[in-house]
Every structure is written in structure tokens, then in C-alpha cells.
């Protein structure tokens, strides 16, 4: 969270690398918030689509559907991020929409695969006991399966959020803003200090998100 104090970081890095840092059009804290916003919006969409998807494909008798879901989300992970972002530009134009699409596709994999793994790991005797208590399918899902698979699912959410902090920097190449902006500016002006600032902030953001989500999981337990 130190990263949000303006001026401090710029001064330190500038002294360390011995280079003058040009001021950016947008202040760093606002770029950081922009970056965080992109990642969070993508993450919410990922959760809204990924969790129901994992639930639907793990219902009994849907093994083929499950493999399809894993194959498609796996494909999203395999195709290079820049390629996804660039392919989306002719359709969605420049700016936030293609980046959000890329973040969504990229973030979906860990959530869906961990969701599936978590739901499959709920052991059969527990489910049988719940059925024996007279719970309906919906009740079992809500009271037994989802709570029991939550830790595994949250691990997937953590991975996906941390990866997406890195992925979102590439969005700056499409004019999305965020912490990729100082990096790209630094690259084109041959100014390492700018690159370092963007990188440091992005890495710090990734680590703090990871830590926060870790705390949330522990509080849950």
C-alpha cells in the first residue's frame, strides 16, 4: 500500500537509477487504481461465469461437457495474451474492452479448473449423508458442496488475480491505461526508471492482492 503515496516512489527510483523521470499525463496513484479496477472487474466477471460453469459441468452425467469446458478454458490459457488482445481490437476497438476480454479469458482457467477440482473432491459419503438427511440437490450444493470446495476455488481466484495483474500491463499497448503505461512510455523513451516504477507497482499490486485474498481465505476458515 506504500505504492499509493505519490512522489515517494518516483523520488526513490529516480535517485537509484540516476535518471530524470518525466511526469506522466496521469498520476501514478490513478494509474494504479485504474489497473486495480481492470483486474477486479475482470475477476468479478470471471467469478460470475466461472463458478456456475464449474457447478454445471460437475453435475453427474456431464463428463463430456466437463472435458469440453476444460479444453476451451485451456485454449484460452495457451493462446498468447497479446494475440487475444490484438485479435479483439478489430472487433472491439482500442481501449478497455479488448483488455477486459483478454483478462477474462486468461483469468477463467484457474477459477474453472480449481472449481471443478474442488467440487469433485467433495467426498461421496458426505454427500450421501446429506441426501440421507433429506436435503434437496440445491440445498446440498449450497450448504455442502460449495462451502467444502471453497478453499480450492479461492486458491484458483488468487492465482487468476495475480496473473491478471501482470496481464493487464500489456493492455497499455492498446491504450487501456493502467500500470503498463509507464512501462511502455519508458520503453519508447529508453527511460529505465519509468519501466522500473511500472514494474514495481505492478509487482507490489500483485503481491498485495495475493496477500489480501490469502487473509480473506484464512478469515473464512
Amino acid at each position, binding site marked *: 500500500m506504500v505504492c499509493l503515496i505519490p512522489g515517494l516512489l518516483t523520488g526513490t527510483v529516480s535517485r537509484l*537509477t540516476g535518471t530524470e523521470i518525466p511526469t506522466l499525463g496521469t498520476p501514478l496513484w490513478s494509474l494504479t487504481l485504474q489497473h486495480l479496477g481492470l483486474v477486479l472487474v475482470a475477476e468479478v466477471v470471471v467469478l460470475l461465469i466461472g463458478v456456475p460453469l464449474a457447478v454445471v459441468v460437475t453435475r453427474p452425467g456431464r463428463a*463430456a*461437457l466437463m*472435458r*469440453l469446458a476444460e*479444453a*476451451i478454458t485451456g*485454449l484460452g*490459457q*495457451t*493462446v*498468447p*495474451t*497479446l*494475440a*487475444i488482445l*490484438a*485479435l479483439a*481490437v*478489430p*472487433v472491439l476497438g482500442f481501449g478497455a474492452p479488448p483488455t477486459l476480454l483478454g483478462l477474462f479469458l486468461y483469468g477463467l482457467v484457474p477459477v474453472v479448473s480449481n472449481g471443478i477440482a474442488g467440487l469433485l473432491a467433495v467426498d461421496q459419503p458426505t454427500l450421501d449423508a446429506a441426501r440421507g438427511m433429506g436435503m434437496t440437490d440445491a440445498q446440498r450444493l449450497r450448504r455442502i458442496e460449495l462451502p467444502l470446495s471453497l478453499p480450492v476455488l479461492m486458491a484458483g481466484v488468487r492465482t487468476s488475480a*495475480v496473473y491478471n*495483474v*501482470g*496481464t493487464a*500491463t*500489456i493492455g*497499455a*499497448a*492498446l491504450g487501456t491505461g493502467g500500470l*503498463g503505461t509507464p*512501462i*511502455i512510455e*519508458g*520503453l519508447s523513451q*529508453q527511460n*529505465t526508471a519509468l*519501466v*522500473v516504477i*511500472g*514494474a514495481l507497482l*505492478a*509487482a507490489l499490486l*500483485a*503481491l498485495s492482492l495475493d496477500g489480501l485474498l490469502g487473509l480473506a481465505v484464512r478469515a473464512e476458515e
Partner: protein
Amino acid sequence: MLWLGAAPMLTSLLLPWVLLRPNRLAAGEFLRLPGAQAALGALLVMAAALSGRFLPRAAPLLASLSLLTGLWWLGAQTTTALTGQATFARASASSGLWLWLLGGGILVYGAGLAARGMGRLQVLLAWLWLPGLVLLALIGHFADWSVIAEYRVQRSRFGQELGQHLKLILSALGLAAVIGAPLAVWASRNARVSGVVLGLAGGVQTVPSLALLGMLIAPLSWLANHLPALRSLGVSGIGTAPALSAMTLYALLPVLRNGVVALRGVSPGALDAARGMGMTDNQRFWRVQLPLALPVWLSGFRQAAVMLVGVASVAQLIGAGGLGYFIFSGLQSGAADLILLGAVPAALLAIGLDALLRGLEALLGSKLGKV
């Protein structure tokens, strides 16, 4: 599941298939599929989807044919659109075609899964579209598609950048193997070393690829300025050297992590048996532990290779070339065809490498036995 593929395909028949533009940058008009062909397509897709229920043996063939039809139309419709147009005119694929190909992919995947229980012929039929696609490409069926038109303009550059892309990936993988393999062996025997090594490699991974590329510019240009020997080897602040260093650092984590997991995962029983047979420590490592660990270790290389395809496409930003050249120049000039010329091969390269190494893993796994 076949319906899941058929639904987007049927929808796609209502959407525009071809975008015709007077030149590569201008706005254009959308063309739909002619009614007769759309009806034919709808029939074929319905047949493929229904066959899953009534005649499962025909499903793989029908699914393959449906996908191939879309590819055929890509070539045929762009050619039709361009007849009578000026030489600068471009015909590119539009939403309908992409949606058809997406649905076709799901259809073929579903049919292929179901075909596994039916015998070899059905599985092969589900893959029929692939030789069909290669054949269509070889006879120049796609010659009028705008991306191929762009390729003709950029032909020599394309070969060069693709070569550079591959060279970057393979050298980084090679370097990661040379550095990572001994480290992984060492770390697998020593808990403290593995903690430090995996922690460091994991830390590198949280730095965005874009930033890592940029941060290596300064140290490498310093090295090049102070050590003339390195500069004569071609090391400099921008270009291949920083790109290769960043990519190697990135590839290290999966190689190390899977190496440690794989080597530790070899069952103690097997190692004890080997010791009981009188093998020396060296023999046990080379003949028992390494072969048993290899399939899992290889999957680390696969993850690294797939990731490197992505990092290499960003490497253009520090002047290292690769397929990113087309993506970034396309983004700058707003030429969608140029973007596709970089992005489509990059995507195919990643998918191809993934499939190839997965195959190798399966082969090694069945030859050497599972850990």
C-alpha cells in the same frame, strides 16, 4: 454436446460472413452468405447434431465436413467478393465465419470424444478436417483472404520474423534447461536450496513480462559498455540479448518447479529396490530416478514453451523482433489484417507446441512408466 457446437453455427448463418473493403484501411460493407449455401449449411449442421442421437457412427464424419465447409466458404466467399473489384480491395472474414469455426471446433471436439468408444476409423474421421484444411491451403484456396493478401506483401519479412520468434523460444528453452536442470536436481535433494530457488523463480514470475523485458535494458547495456568482449558477441541493451535473458528467467520457474516435484515424486520403493540391486548413487539417478521423473519434468518444459510464445510476441517492444512485429505495426497503423498476420500464427504456434509436447509426454509416459 453436439448441440452446443451446432447452436453457434446456426446463429452464424444469420451474421455477415465477409467484409469487403476498397483497400486495407478503409471502412467496408458486410456481405452475407447466399441463401442457398446458408440453407445447405443449416442442413449439414442439423444432420451432424442429430446424428449424435440417431446415428452416432456418422457424427465424426459430419462434424468434420461441417467444419471443412466453413473453411471452404472462407476461401470461396472471399474470392467471389473480390471478383470485379480493384486490385487494392480486400475481403476479410467477418463475425459469421469466426462463429462458425468456433462452433465447428466444438462439434468436432465433441464428436471426437464420443468416437473414442467406436473404434479407430471414427476417431480418424473426426480429424478429417485437418488434412482437408492443409489441402485447401496448399492449393491456394485462401489466396483472396485478406490475411493471405497481407502475407504476400510481407512474405520475406514474415519468414524472418517467424524464424526469429522460434529462435528466441528455442534458445530460451535451451538456456533454461542448461541452467534449470542442475539446479532442480540440487534443489530436489536439499529442502533449503529448493525453498530459496523456487521462491526466487516465483518472484520473477510476478513481475509482468513487459516490465521484465524493460528492466533488463539497463544492466545489459551497462555490461555491453564495460565489457567489449560481450559487445562483440552481440550483447546490447535492446534487441535479442535482453529478450533472451528475460525469457530464460521466465522459463526457469516451470522447469525448476516441475523438476523438483518430479524428482521428489519418484517412489522411495523404486529407489530402495535399485539400491538393493547394488546400483551406485550415480546409476540410481541416471537409470531409475531421472527416467521416472522425465514425463512430469517435460510438462514443465511444455508450460514454459507455451508461455514463451506469448512473451516472445511482446519482445518486439524492445526491438527483438518476432511475430509481435506484425501485431504492433498493425495496432499502430490500424490495419486489422496485419494484426491477424501476427496474432493467428502466434496462437497456432502456441497450440501446436502444446499439442506436440503433450504427445511427447504421453509417449515418454507410456515408455518409461508413470511416477
